C-alpha cells in the first residue's frame, strides 16, 4: 500500500477533478511544477479549486485550464477579451498560453502553503498584495526568481 499521488497521469487525475467540480464539489490538488513560483512551490503546496463561474473570470484569477488536448496548466489569467483568455504562470518569464473560458476546469479559491492545515483564501490580504506587487516584466521576474532559487530552494 502506498500513496499514489505522483503516479496517476494528469489526464486521469484532472478528469476526476473535473467530475468532482461538475458535481458541485470543491477539489484539493497538489501543485506540480514550478510555474507558479514564488508563491506556490511544487509538491509542497496545495490549491483548492471551485467550479468556475465562467462569465466572472477576470484578470488576476488563477485557473486550472486545458490549453490543448490533455495539456493542463494552473496559471494566472493575465488578459480577458470576451471569451478569450491569456494565461501566464507567475514563475514563467516569457511563456503565455491562450484558451477560452470554456477550457477552464476550475478556479482557485484558496491555498495550503508550507504544509499548513488551514487554507489561505484568494481574498486574503497576503494574496492580494502579492498579486499586485508581483511584476509582469520578464527582466524583473528573471532576477527575482533567480535570487529566489538560490535563497529559498
Amino acid at each position, binding site marked *: *500500500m*502506498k*500513496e*499514489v*499521488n505522483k*503516479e*496517476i*497521469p494528469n489526464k*486521469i*487525475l484532472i478528469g*476526476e*477533478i473535473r467530475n*468532482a467540480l461538475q458535481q458541485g*464539489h*470543491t*477539489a*484539493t*490538488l*497538489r501543485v506540480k511544477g514550478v510555474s507558479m513560483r514564488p508563491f506556490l512551490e511544487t509538491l509542497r503546496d*496545495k490549491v*483548492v479549486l471551485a467550479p468556475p463561474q465562467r462569465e466572472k473570470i477576470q484578470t488576476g484569477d488563477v485557473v486550472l485550464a486545458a490549453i490543448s488536448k490533455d495539456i493542463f496548466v494552473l496559471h494566472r489569467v493575465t488578459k480577458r477579451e470576451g471569451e478569450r483568455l491569456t494565461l501566464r504562470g507567475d514563475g514563467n518569464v516569457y511563456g503565455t498560453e491562450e484558451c477560452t473560458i470554456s477550457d477552464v476546469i476550475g478556479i482557485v479559491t484558496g491555498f495550503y502553503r508550507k504544509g499548513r492545515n488551514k487554507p489561505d483564501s484568494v481574498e486574503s490580504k497576503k494574496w492580494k498584495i502579492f498579486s499586485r506587487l508581483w511584476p509582469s516584466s520578464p527582466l524583473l521576474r528573471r532576477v527575482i526568481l533567480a535570487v529566489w532559487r538560490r535563497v529559498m530552494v
Partner: protein
Amino acid sequence: MKIKTGFELRDVCGEKVIIATGIENIDFSRMISLNESAAFLWENIQDKEFDAGTLAELLLQEYEVDKADALADSQKLLNEWLECGIIE
C-alpha cells in the same frame, strides 16, 4: 476499529484508491492505493467494527491462504491503515 468518515474507495484509472471525500471538498492531494485484496477487505468492512481477526476471516473466505499468514497480513494492513489515518 472502523473506517473514518469521509474516506471513499474509488477506481481511478483501474487503480483502487482511497480518497478523502467530504460533503463539499474532495481531496485529490493525497490518495492511497490499495491492492486487490486490500480493496476487497475495505469493501467488506464498510460501516462495520473490525479488527485484525475480522480481516483475516474475510481473507480466509476469499483466498486460499493459511490462517497464520492471513492474520499476519491483516495485522500489517491494519497498522498501515492506522498510520495513514484512514481508520480509527
